[in-house]
């Protein structure tokens, strides 16, 4: 199921046995909550009607054993809720004991992106592809402020701290595309520090690692890191403050220039525009505001950045086709 | 308190919203204790952080603590204990209504407090000479190879300067009060102010008695 299909959703997808059990815990707790609160709501409303001033009603009072009443209505709800404390703590401890055969994913959080590295070396940005039916441990750290990796479909989250590794583990059992977020407020683009968690069968995962995974994890993936670290997105991302041309899908397209010419956005064009954007080839309808990156960006970073821009072109075209 | 029982010149004037002098005096004492409790927790937070640092980075803290001037700290401890003694003397004399003696003891207290600040200032100056001020960006830090030592040194400055600030406030109040107390009739109306201030002064002393071992002694 694709989560973006719906404008209203009332039940979150659960993709692991732990997630399902957490749901049962929440559901059962809700039943208890209703048992404890609905009588109060009903009683208040009923008393408000029955004992309104001027209404005929029996207001005589017998003896009330108030100590007994007080203690029982404190102790009984407390003991009942303790059941849920124990249940919750048990689940919590299970979620802390990582099986020895867990596959280890390294995650790095930084303002404002996630980088995940698979055990086979491939890495991806913001999105995460994982197999089901296999315990997975995500070992994570932050490069700057505190972030928090949140996987709602697995009912799991854990903070990434700048000074030490933290971890969470799960064993998913349902394929599909789910959300992942940063849930600890981390600055300007906190709300854009999200992506998709794709859970697939072991075979699909192996295939993904071979194909798309390898491609994404290579030069292009590293290029995305370069893109973020030079702050390109501050102007070029959709919705950025400074209006600059969108770069997704740019590669291979025809670009109309301010002087009326049209050029194809090939690799040379991209390189030129990054190193010396103010020379001649200004795109139509845009102001000349971009700083030059000659002598700023080292050659290997430039290579990575260009392959990232090329890869976004490929994705955009793929999406456009069907 | 039996203040003023033997001498009619010693006492406390009733302020209109209190019913009795006894009530007024109780309120003032309780108020100062409540304030000191708050202050104690303020410093407790700092000392706790210092102890946590020591647990986390014992070597770095010890290395940094070697640069503290132990003897200045020790002398300052004696100076402050001495000032508490003179303050107690002032309180005793105020109860007896012996105004001139009391004023002298108060001046001695203020002098000892100032001596403490002077010694502390010299200690800071020596630290500056030794490049032990890591928060100064234009002055290289002596122990730059040991980053955690910075934490301890900085915390030392936060704690001691906060204590110094309290002491400075205390000396100012004390001097103003000495000036008021030197005028005739003071003890007949406001004797309890001396007692209340005494509580505060002993408290500043107490904080130093906690700070000295936490910062200087424990880490040697």
């Amino acid at each position, binding site marked *: 199921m694709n989560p973006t299909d719906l404008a*209203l*959703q*009332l039940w979150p997808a659960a993709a692991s046995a732990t997630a399902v059990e957490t749901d049962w*815990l*929440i559901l059962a707790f809700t039943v208890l*909550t209703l048992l*404890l*609160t609905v009588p*109060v*709501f009903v*009683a*208040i409303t009923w008393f*408000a009607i029955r*004992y309104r*001033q001027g209404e005929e*009603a029996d*207001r*005589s009072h017998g003896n*009330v*054993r*108030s*100590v007994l009443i007080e203690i029982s209505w*404190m102790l009984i709800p407390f003991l009942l809720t303790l059941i*849920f404390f124990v*249940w*919750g*703590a048990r689940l*919590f401890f299970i*979620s802390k004991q990582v099986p020895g055969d867990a596959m280890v994913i390294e995650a790095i959080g930084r303002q404002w992106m996630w980088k995940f590295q698979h055990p086979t070396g491939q890495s991806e940005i913001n999105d995460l592809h994982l197999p089901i039916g296999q315990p997975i441990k995500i070992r994570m750290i932050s490069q700057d*402020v505190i972030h928090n990796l*949140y996987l*709602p479909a697995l*009912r799991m*989250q854990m903070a990434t*701290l*700048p*000074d*030490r590794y933290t971890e969470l583990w799960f064993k998913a059992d349902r394929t599909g595309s789910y*959300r992942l977020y940063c*849930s600890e*407020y981390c600055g*300007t683009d*906190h*709300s854009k520090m999200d992506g998709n968690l794709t859970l697939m069968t072991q075979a699909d995962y192996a295939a993904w690692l071979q194909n798309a995974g390898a491609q994404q994890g290579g030069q292009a993936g590293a290029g995305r890191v370069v893109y973020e670290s030079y702050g390109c997105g501050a102007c070029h991302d959709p919705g950025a403050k400074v209006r600059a041309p969108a770069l997704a899908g740019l590669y291979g397209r025809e670009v109309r220039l301010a002087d009326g010419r049209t050029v194809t956005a090939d690799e040379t064009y991209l390189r030129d525009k990054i190193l010396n954007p103010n020379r001649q080839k200004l795109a139509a309808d845009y102001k000349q505001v971009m700083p030059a990156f000659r002598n700023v960006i080292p050659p290997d970073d430039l290579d990575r950045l260009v392959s990232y821009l090329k890869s976004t072109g490929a994705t955009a075209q793929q999406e456009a086709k069907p | 308190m039996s203040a003023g029982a033997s001498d009619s010149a010693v006492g406390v004037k*009733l302020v*209109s*919203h209190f019913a009795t002098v006894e*009530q007024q005096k109780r*309120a003032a004492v309780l*108020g100062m204790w*409540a304030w000191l409790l*708050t202050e104690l*927790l*303020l410093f407790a937070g700092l000392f706790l952080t210092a102890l946590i640092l020591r647990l986390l980075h014992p070597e*770095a803290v010890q290395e940094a603590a070697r640069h503290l001037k132990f003897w200045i700290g020790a002398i300052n401890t004696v100076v402050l204990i001495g000032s508490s003694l003179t303050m107690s003397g002032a309180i005793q004399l105020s109860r007896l209504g012996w105004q001139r003696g009391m004023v002298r003891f108060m001046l001695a207290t203020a002098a000892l407090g100032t001596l403490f600040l002077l010694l502390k200032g010299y200690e800071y100056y020596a630290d500056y000479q030794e490049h032990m001020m890591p928060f100064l960006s234009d002055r290289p830090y002596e122990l730059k190879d040991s*980053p955690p030592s*910075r934490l301890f040194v*900085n*915390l030392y400055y*936060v704690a001691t300067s906060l204590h110094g600030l309290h002491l400075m406030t205390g000396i100012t109040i004390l001097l103003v009060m000495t000036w008021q107390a030197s005028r005739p009739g003071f003890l007949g109306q406001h004797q309890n102010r001396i007692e209340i201030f005494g509580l505060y002064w002993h408290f500043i002393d107490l904080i130093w008695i906690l700070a000295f071992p936490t910062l200087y002694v424990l880490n040697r």
Partner: protein
Amino acid sequence: MTSGTITDGPALREPHTPDSRLGHGADYLHAEHTLRSWFFTTDHKRIALLYLASITAFFVIGAVTAGLVRLALVVPDGQVFTNDTYNKLFTIHGVVMVWFFLIPSIPATFGNFLIPLMIGARDLAFPKLNLASWYVFMTGALFTLASVVLGGVDTGWTFYTPLSTAFSNTWVVPALIGVTIVGFSSILTGLNFVVTIHTMRAPGMTWFRLPIFVWTHYATSLIFLLATPVITVALILLIAERAFHIGVFDPAYGGDPVLFQHLFWFYSHPAVYIMVLPGMGVISEIVPAFAQKKLFGYKFVAYAAIGLASVTFFVWGHHMFVNGQSDFASVAFSVLSFAVAVPSAVKVYNWTATIHKGSLKLDTPMLYAMGYIGLFVLGGLTGLYLATLAINQHVHATYFVVAHFHYIMVGGTVLAFLGGLHFWWPKITGRMYIEAWGRISAFLIFIGFNVTFFPQFILGYLGMPRRYHVYPPEFQFLNILSSAGSTILAVGYLFPMVYLVYSIWFGKRAPANPWDAKGLEWTVPSPPPAHNFLTEPVAPKVPYDYPLQAQETGRQHS
């Protein structure tokens, strides 16, 4: 304490006359008229009004920013503001509402106004300190407002390191200085209350004759005294860290960023009870008055207030279950949180039992109180969800948390504040407001609140993180619903601001005791005379001495 003359107090031993106008000199509002007489007053009642005016202004700032936040969230792609603007808006909302409205709200206004009246004193123990604490409060507020004017702060009201110390490019230091200064104002207020309640009680006013309002304020003041210095030191370290890089919270020097969270929540969890306990006090006054029945389980509620204030110091770790805290610490904090949440939530049973077989008047204060009971119990019990470790792993830092604490703070504190405002308005101003308008606004607020915040429980359970400007489109419907509710809530808030102000000039004159309520504050004229009591106050033999009462056995009231 310097000025003043030796006096026996004003005209004692006069016959007790409950009528409001005795021609005994002017009441506190009309005793003097100059601006100076307001800004340099030491009368606790006037200082309460200074606070009331200031916190209302802060409430408006907080509410407007909340409205803008809700406006931004109508669309999922964050097109209304830039991300930075949005972040600054929710930060201002949080900082202003928590530090400048909720924490001072009930204690600084009603506490200031009523504690001396309720215990039969002429004023608080330290009237000048009381005035000073208002000035300290305003100075702190000025710093924070300065940071807003200069360009805002974007760290969230929690100021987590290292974001606040090393990464934010906004005006964090003035905001922090402001909050630190306001802390001192809280400490001074708490100190004044503790000393007043201990030493200034009228003859015969023993501890178990005190109204619950006084008990809960006593408990609140203890938290002010014991918890506030810890946040002060945490904020001082934070300021030093940001300004001089002292490194205590910086991992580059071996410091620990999570240490700040510990220090922060060591204050800020008890601070929740600073907001909650005074509200419980207000409700415990309103419910018996409008049921004309003695509060059920008086001693129990009084002890509970002190008990809650103590246990709340040991639960701060439940804010850090997923922040790398040791698992065993998490379990301990979890069970302690249950131990504090259940007793506070079941307080609603005491109020419900008080209504039982009462003689109910459903006037505005009572409507607010009933709304409070409903919302507070939901807020309290959803707190248990968050204290449950496995559930916390899912809903931590989502809209579930946002909904939960708004049920506690708006459903609890704000409704209690408004209920108290309507209850004591005749006493404070000497005027009656128009009852029908009061009831309409109480309904609007109750409905608007639920439409705004109930969908947020669902949003959180679905996994929408808090502080998200751009959010996935599947959450849009519930967000629109929430924003729609906030407009109803806004109208509900606007009404009292209009009709209450109107009543000051055009309202009917209020009698000394319009609600037939018990308590010493209702024995003096409305508004009270400058020195509170025309005759020496006589403490009642029993608190809440209403005509109806259950014969409680198993405990005696002394």
